[in-house]
């Protein structure tokens, strides 16, 4: 595989890394993470960078150690045959070394592909088909087994590097090696020049799923990773030596985000022992900043509340009271734009006598800013957390969009070629308006001035789909198209929509709802109905979800609610009235764990398609959202 660019000595860039008074600020977003790491190692060699629980004990590493480790890993990998442009898959959980490997791989100019640790062998083969990687770094034996089972379908897979083999010994005929084996002779000592990447070069590929459940690979450039990280850091107002906790499979984008943000702000990233111990470990770790999926917050809350309900009446009473208080306070502030004096006082008192000890017990004692990804934290949960003195702001972090340069599938090419700007890359546009391209060298994420990208991987002569998303000039700076975005609407519309939301959500049938423009000035309500409630009104109470949403009665009832809400909105004197032209829901019910909305599911249902013209939703969804990236919005 021929390298795309020759390595340059990085001596020239060092001063750039030194110019800095406030930590992190000086480093421009485009700088590869390994350089950030090295900067940290130079300036704060002593301070702790990572912490992990191995075999029941907490181990920690300083920046300098990590830097040294990363360099030696790169040397090790170089010996194993990892070159620039090589692709190396990584899968595993709760072990910082996995991230260090990612860094080392970037340092070598190769592309780390973060794979879910829960992946099964067929999916693994699927990922392999997209990015024929020759190397696979397995966090634990589970992943080793996956790779071994899939080896027949992965001809190019040369080496599985196992970080933690536990009790195992079998090496499957040289396929599986441990680090120790690899270090072996002088692997650790061979020092390899780092690869200097452009900020538009791909930094990392994340194996995830699109809303159809298809496994896709998402590629992020150094620029977008940095940008996302910095945005997160600023949202969380992260400081140096803050403590973060990461506890999920490495391929979760939120996890990767925390990791990169921690690097930029040189915060301390700890990882729990495993998912079973997560809650307990969290209590010990007491993070300052936390980014977790909604499901995890739910788990925490249920744990807390079960406790509260089993504890003394007084505690329970205070808790309920503080909940209502929080609700009233927010209502008050919504009305007058500021919290009431009484509320402030009582809140303060509560915090001293009730919340503080509670936070201490449940492990949020030090928490400064918490975020939940994978959609929106249901308002009731948010309120209950608030009553514990914990504010959780949902951030929009769909891995499809957070830091994406492009995603890949490989249909057959269509007619109607378009002019090619980069030599060696041929582009055509198919009837669906998608751009397809072919390059005569294996390529990764090259960007064309027409705002087109080639697939993650094209074999010489192979075709792949790409999607238009924005303009990039030859200097490699991105320029995004505009997004239609609630936050950017004039306040009255937003307020009116919020009013809609509260009305709908207050209904028994609807758990929560969001709104998309239908393109004709009105709005589509995408709702998440309460299945049990639906059953209650359905003629056949035994019917399954997909049956329910076909039933006239049910649709009528929901339509009634919408209509009511529209009327209310018209009556509402304050501000302009927004009307809901149609509503959509999901082919699959969302379990309580998910309980959130994605803005696509609704379209999978024929009934809805009749209600909402697909094309319109398109503007509302895929491409434009895609364009405006990587942007973290605090709802």
């Amino acid at each position, binding site marked *: 595989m021929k390298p795309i660019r020759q390595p340059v000595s990085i001596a020239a860039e060092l001063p750039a890394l030194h110019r800095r008074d406030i930590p992190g600020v000086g480093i421009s977003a485009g700088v590869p993470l390994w350089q950030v790491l090295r900067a940290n190692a130079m300036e704060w060699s002593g301070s702790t960078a990572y912490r992990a629980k191995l*075999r029941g004990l907490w181990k920690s590493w300083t920046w300098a150690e990590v830097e040294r480790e990363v360099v030696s890993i790169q040397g090790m990998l170089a010996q194993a045959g990892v070159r620039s442009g090589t692709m190396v898959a990584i899968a595993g959980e709760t072990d910082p070394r996995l991230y260090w490997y990612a860094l080392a791989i970037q340092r070598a100019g190769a592309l780390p592909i973060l794979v879910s640790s829960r992946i099964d062998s067929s999916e693994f083969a699927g990922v392999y088909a997209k990015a024929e990687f020759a190397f696979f770094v397995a966090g634990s034996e589970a992943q080793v087994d996956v790779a071994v089972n899939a080896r027949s379908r992965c001809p190019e897979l040369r080496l599985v590097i196992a970080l933690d083999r536990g*009790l195992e*010994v079998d090496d499957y005929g040289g396929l599986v090696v441990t680090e120790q084996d690899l270090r072996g002779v002088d692997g650790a000592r061979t020092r390899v020049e780092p690869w200097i990447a452009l900020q538009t070069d791909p930094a990392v590929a994340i194996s995830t799923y699109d809303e159809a459940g298809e496994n896709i690979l998402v590629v992020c450039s150094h620029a977008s990773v940095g940008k996302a990280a910095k945005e997160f850091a600023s949202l969380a107002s992260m400081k140096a030596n803050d403590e973060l906790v990461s506890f999920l499979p490495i391929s979760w984008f939120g996890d990767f985000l925390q990791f990169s943000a921690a690097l930029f702000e040189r915060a301390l990233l700890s990882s729990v*022992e495993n998912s079973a111990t997560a809650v*307990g470990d969290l209590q010990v770790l007491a993070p300052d900043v936390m980014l977790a999926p909604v499901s995890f917050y739910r788990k925490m809350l249920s744990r807390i509340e079960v406790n509260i309900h089993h504890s003394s009446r007084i505690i329970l009473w205070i808790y309920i009271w503080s909940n209502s208080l929080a609700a009233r306070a927010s209502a008050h502030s919504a009305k007058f734009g500021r919290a009431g004096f009484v509320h402030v006082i009582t809140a303060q008192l509560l915090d001293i006598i009730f919340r503080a000890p509670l936070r201490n017990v449940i492990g949020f004692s030090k928490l400064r800013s918490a975020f939940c990804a994978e959609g929106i934290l249901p308002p009731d949960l948010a309120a209950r957390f608030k009553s514990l003195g914990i504010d959780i702001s949902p951030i929009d972090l769909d891995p499809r969009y957070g830091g994406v340069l492009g995603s890949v599938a490989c249909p057959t090419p269509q007619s109607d070629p378009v002019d090619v700007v980069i030599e060696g890359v041929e582009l055509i546009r198919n009837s669906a308006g998608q751009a397809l391209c072919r390059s005569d060298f294996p390529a990764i994420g090259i960007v064309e001035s027409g705002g087109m990208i080639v697939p993650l991987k094209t074999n010489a002569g192979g075709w792949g789909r790409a999607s238009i998303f924005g303009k990039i000039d030859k200097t490699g700076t991105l320029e995004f198209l505009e997004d239609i975005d609630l936050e950017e609407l004039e306040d009255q519309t937003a307020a009116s929509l919020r009013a809609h939301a509260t009305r709908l959500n207050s209904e028994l049938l609807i758990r929560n709802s969001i709104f998309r423009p239908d393109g004709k000035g009105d709005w589509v309500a995408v709702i998440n109905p309460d299945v049990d409630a639906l059953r209650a009104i359905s003629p056949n109470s035994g019917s399954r979800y997909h049956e329910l949403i076909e039933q006239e009665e049910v649709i009528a009832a929901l339509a009634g609610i919408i209509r009511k809400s529209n009327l209310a909105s018209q009556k509402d004197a304050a501000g302009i009235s927004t009307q809901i032209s149609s509503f959509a829901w999901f082919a699959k019910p969302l379990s309580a764990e998910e309980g959130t909305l994605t803005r696509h599911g609704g379209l999978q249902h024929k009934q809805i398609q009749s209600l909402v013209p697909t094309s319109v939703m398109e503007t509302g969804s895929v491409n434009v959202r895609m364009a405006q990236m990587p942007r973290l919005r605090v709802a």
Partner: protein
Amino acid sequence: MRNISPTGADTIIVDDVSLRFGGVMALTGVSVKVREGEIFAIIGPNGAGKTSLLNCINGFYRPTSGSVALVGADKPSISVSSAARSGLARTFQNLALFRGLSTVENLLLGRNLKMKTNLLQVAMFVGAARREEIEHRAAVEEIVHFLQLQAVRDEPVGQLPYGIQKRIEFGRALASEPRVILLDEPMAGMNQHEKAEMSGFIRSVNDKMKVTFVLIEHDIGVVMGLSDRIAVLDHGEKIAEGTPSEVSANPSVISAYLGVEH
């Protein structure tokens, strides 16, 4: 179905063993050879004498006639503890854990034989004794990690769910780094998922640590999938032995066992 059949040397030789309780013949003239590194299953209807055979192998019962030999043992395993010393570990149909003790303590007891420090050193609890504790604790943590027991590390095992307890008992057997592990219905009362998990553990221990297994299991599906060879007992007599395919083909087995069970 597992077709690779290890052709290791014989590890356990049960030679024409009979066992009598008062008037009842629990076993009559049973001869079995367990090869090194294989998973050997003993099946049969209830009261066929499976557990009795296991008990003979690791010395709970002394056969009325016939002999049991553990090849490579320093001395023929006559008592339970000497069997343990010669690398024989065992789990029970109805758990035999130390209910009052935590998971880690149970596993540590599995390594009891490896702990050498004497009473005085221990009473001082410095130097050797301390080092020993730490070293064995580390070894135990490996098993905790392997069997995914982190969450219950310090819980008293008495209150833990059944599946977990089974796993802990298996871990305790593993902790003694045995050559042979006898499993008496390791998956009794488990749901399918737990069974799959357990077989996974057994398989990987057998594959990768070359531990020989002798197991009694009622779930025919599991047995067929897991074991290299199977012996079928009925009324204390061995009516068949061979690979899963052979056994399941054997008419007498079908009549005596499968017919009854399913």
